[in-house]
Structure formats: C-alpha cells, structure tokens
C-alpha cells in the first residue's frame, strides 16, 4: 500500500508542488537563518582562531575574549614559573583608531605579539614576511582590512586609491606611523575592525597612555601535559584565569574561552532572539503551508480513503499511508530547502558577507523540524480520515 500511497502523492503534481514549496521554504528559512546566526556568532571568538595558542591566561574577571582586562607585566614571570609551562608569551589586544591618508579614521583590532617567538602570529601571509615585523614602525594587516582601508588610501597623485593596501603603504595609529610589511589571511571579527599585527613592545607605543598593556598570555604546555591540566595548575599557582583554545562551541568544556565568548554573546545580546524569531517564523510558515496543503490533499482524497476503509483497510494502514506521504514530502522538501540554503551559503562564503556556518547539527535540527512539520500534517490528515464513516461511500 505504501507504494500506492506514494503514487497517490506524486500523481497530484500541483498539490505536491505546493506541499514541497512550503516545506522547502521552511527548511531554507530555518537552515539559512541558523547558519547566518552561527556565522555571526563564530565571529565573536575570532581572536581565538586568528591568534593560535594552546592555553590563554587572563585576568580572573575576564568573561570573553573581546573584553580583556589588562594584567601586570610581572604576571608573565609568574606564569612561566608554573610547572608544566614550556613557554609563555605576552599578547596585547585592543581596539584603536587608525588614521588613513585621506584623513578618515578606522577602528582596528591591534594585536601585539612577542617579537622573539612570534607566538600568536597569523598562520597565513599572502604578502611579506613575519620577520619584517622586527623592523621599525611595521605592521601586518589582514586582507579584508587591506581592502577596506585601501578605499580610504590616497595615491601619489593625491586621489583616492580604491585599491587594497600593499606592502610599503602607510597609515597612522595614535599619530605614530605604521608601515605595512605583510598582508595576512585571517578570519573576520564580530567588531568589524581589521586585524593589525605588530610586536608587543610596539603595541605599547601605539597605545600611549595605557598603564597596563598585557591583555593575555599565550602559553604552550610542556610535552605530555594536557592543556586543561595546565590550566588548573596556572589557576592554582597564580590566581589568574586560564583557558583552553578549544573552539568547538558544542562542547561542555568550561575552560574554552571561545565557548564562553559564544555564550556570553548569546546571553547578553539580542542576536539569538532576532534569529530565533526568524527560525520560528520558518517553522510556523512551514506548518501553516504544509499542514494546510496536506490537509487539502487529504480532503480531496477523502472519499477514496473512505472507499479504502470500506474495502477493509484499517486505520493503522491508512495512518501509515499518510505518514509515508507526509514524510516523503518532508524528505524532498528538506532536500530542496537545505540544498538552496547551501547554494545561498556558497555565494555568501564567496562574498564573505554575511557570515555563514552550516554545522551538521543545523542540518540535523532542520531535518528534525521538517519531519516534525510533516508529522503534524499527517496527524491532521489522520484525524480527518479517522472521522470519516466507511458507510459514507454509499452516499454518492
């Protein structure tokens, strides 16, 4: 009977198209909005991705990576003395204004890394060499920032450049020249400012007036020491807060600074509510369109279901037929919707805006919700058919 149930479904192409449209649109809305949401949320802990270290140490009051509370420089020595620490390097992060050649200002994320070890340096340089950061007044700018700030640049002829900044171009941070010696490829941040790397000591110079400039310490455990275990030791011996660099936000590890940052934004901003509303809207639209269309499909076939009942099919068989029809439509609708979300996501990823991260969990959740919509639709149909009297087939 299930094959016939499917043939009944596919035989009414207009209804099927309407049903699939509802389910696909719903799946698209839920998957796409969730992916953009997680894309934006993944930007919140971008420093954890761009500045690589196994263990981060911060002031005990720090809640998330974008909110550094400066440490004393002497804390570095205390951390280095903890058993199990292979090395520890200073890290400065701050938001400062960069002044472009045309006089415009741009908020940047200034990252000061240790000039000896280059711990926390960007992984990929598309232009230049990391060692050149040891030269006076030098910085490395990320590709997106180079393009953004390039639009503010002025060429030798005094006209806007409209081309990305290159190695050799300059701008100013707190009236101090910053000369570009490299272009790096890093992930964009939630704050929107470009990442500008320099040495830790030079970063102190760029942030004149700041009494403390040590934002974090990047720590490498000795061989055989697990990062989480080292975090415990650092906290016990120094009273500072130590974090692992784990960026899997689904994990329950309390030591992950990325995860803490993610949940800080989740609970302290309206972003989840805004996107959650869109996802719920997708769910309700799906239930409304699909439920209504499936109900009308059942209504149109009601006399045939009554005939099938009269011929000796129990409600169990008919219910299973309706479930097969609804879940098949749900499966196809999910495929279409998720496929469209992927295609849109591909375009978004190529353009870089808006951020798009489609975790497998998003697809599974969307799949479950679409099947939920199908289930509700089928149940509505089953209730209708169950109320039909088999004897009604004799009434014309």
């Amino acid at each position: 009977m299930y094959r016939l149930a499917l043939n009944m479904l596919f035989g009414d192409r207009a209804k099927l198209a309407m049903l699939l449209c509802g389910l696909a649109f719903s799946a698209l809305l839920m998957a796409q909005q969730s992916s953009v949401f997680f894309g934006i949320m993944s930007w919140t802990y971008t420093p954890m991705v761009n500045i690589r270290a196994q263990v981060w140490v911060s002031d005990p009051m720090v809640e998330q990576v974008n909110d550094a509370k400066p440490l004393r420089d002497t804390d570095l020595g205390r951390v280095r003395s903890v058993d199990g620490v292979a090395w520890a390097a200073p890290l400065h992060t701050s938001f400062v204004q960069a002044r472009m050649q045309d006089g415009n200002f741009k908020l940047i994320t200034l990252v000061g890394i240790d000039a000896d070890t280059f711990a926390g340096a960007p992984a990929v340089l598309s232009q230049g060499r990391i060692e050149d950061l040891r030269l006076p007044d030098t910085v490395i700018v990320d590709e997106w920032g180079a393009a953004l700030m390039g639009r503010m640049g002025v060429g030798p002829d005094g006209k806007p450049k409209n081309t990305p900044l290159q190695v050799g171009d300059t701008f100013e941070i707190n009236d101090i020249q910053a000369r570009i010696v490299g272009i790096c490829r890093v992930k964009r941040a939630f704050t929107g400012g470009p990442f500008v790397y320099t040495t830790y000591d030079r970063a102190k110079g760029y942030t004149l007036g700041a009494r403390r400039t040590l934002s974090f310490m990047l720590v490498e455990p000795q061989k055989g020491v697990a990062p989480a275990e080292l975090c415990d030791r650092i906290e016990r011996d120094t009273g500072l807060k130590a974090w692992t660099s784990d960026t899997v936000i689904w994990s329950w590890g309390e030591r992950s600074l990325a995860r803490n940052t993610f949940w800080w934004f989740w609970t302290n901003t309206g972003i989840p509510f805004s996107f959650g509303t869109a996802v719920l809207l997708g769910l309700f639209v799906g239930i409304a369109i699909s439920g209504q269309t499936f109900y009308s499909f059942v209504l149109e076939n009601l006399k045939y279901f009554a005939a099938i009942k009269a011929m000796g099919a129990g409600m169990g068989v008919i219910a299973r037929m309706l479930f097969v029809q609804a879940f098949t439509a749900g499966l196809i609708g999910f495929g279409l919707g998720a496929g469209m979300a992927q295609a849109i996501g591909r375009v978004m990823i190529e353009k870089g805006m808006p951020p798009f991260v489609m975790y497998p969990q998003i697809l599974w959740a969307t799949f479950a919700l679409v099947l939920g919509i199908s289930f509700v639709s089928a149940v509505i149909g089953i209730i209708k058919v169950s109320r039909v009297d088999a004897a009604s087939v004799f009434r014309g």
Partner: protein
Amino acid sequence: MSHLAHTVAVRATGVDMFFGTPENRVVALKQAEFEARRGELIMLVGPSGCGKTTLLSVIAGTLTPQAGTVEVFGQRLDGLGQEALTAFRRRNLGFVFQSFNLIPTLTVVENVMVPLLIQGRSFGEARASALAILDKVGLKGREDGRPNALSGGQQQRGAIARALVHEPPLLICDEPTSALDKDTGGHIMQLVRDLSRSPERCVVVVTHDHRIFRFADRIAEMEDGRISRVVDDPKLLDTTHL
C-alpha cells in the same frame, strides 16, 4: 439452479437502525428482514429514503444496527468489533460504487490492486492478478492509463475488476448504472452477472434503474425501512414510484 443456490448467503433479521438523538430520531430501518441466496443476483429497489443504502451498509458491515442480527456467509456481523468488521470486509466483500471511486492519481491497474494490497499481497502478485481480471472485463491495454482517460462504462468496468479481483463471496453494488447510459448500463450488468455466477458468490445490487431489473434473479422492494415484498419477475413490480 443447483441446490446450493437455495442456501442462504445473507440474512438480516429484525434489523433496527436509526440516526440522530433519541429526541430527534430518524428511523432508517424498522424490523427489516432480508435474505439473499448463494449464486443469485438480488436487487434492492424502492423510493429514495426507504432505507436501501442503510440496509446495504448494514449487510456490508460498515454500519452496526441498533437491533437485529446480520449473518453473511455464516458469519454473524452483529456484535463484531470495528477491527473484526474491517477484517471481515477485507476478506469477504467487493464493492462497486455509484461514482466508481477509482482513485484518479493512480493508474487503472493500481486501482484494481488496492483490495489485494490491503490483504497484504505483494505488489508483483497483486499486479499480475489485477492484469488478469482487467483482461476479463475488457480493459486490456488501458491498465496503465489514468481512470479519467476512460469512458464512464470503462471506469465502471475498472471498478468491477477492483471489486472482484480478490474473489470475494459477496459483491455489493450501489447504483452501479446510474451514471451510465442504457446500453452501457446493460453491458455492465451483464458483466456483473457473468462474473458473479458462482454458487459461492452472491451479488446485492441497490438500484433505481428499472432498465436493469431484467438482470436480477430476485428483486426485493423496500418501503419505510423494511422489505415490503420480494418478486422473481420484474414485471410484477410497480416501477412508477421508483
């Protein structure tokens, strides 16, 4: 007729059936008595509202009477639960409906397969049986078309094929010719009669169509919720009120 033809296939005794609330009761059957024999084609006739369809539904096990007994091929239907009635219909009944009730989104052969698939037969087995009976009713070559591509007569042939494909002992026909012209109706009734001529089968036809009375072995006339008389010869009926 053989001696088997005189054994009872369907017997309804003292059947009461009413609808609505006790205060606002509509009586459909009142102490109705009905008997159909094995191997015969019996017609139920009477004016609209006399209870023909209700009696047919009671015999078919789609309605349970408030009083009386119903026995079909030795099986008492009164007292059976819904599940048992459903199983009974699945095994023992074939239906031909006034409006054919062929599912328009399925092909003709798929429609005919439905009773066999309900019984749990495999798709291949059901298709083979359906094709064989479609051949018998003269629809060979039309099996993979949709019902709406067939004429009214052809659709009713398809419906007959569906009713008989699982070889049920009791064939229930509700106004099988009302949507057909005289010639087509005649051909359909001839087909029903030919295919149902077996001592192990009984055909009950509800009809208003006096043009097909000649196909009946007996005709039971209903009036006010009960059988008023049963005749062997349609000429004995007064058809002016039908």
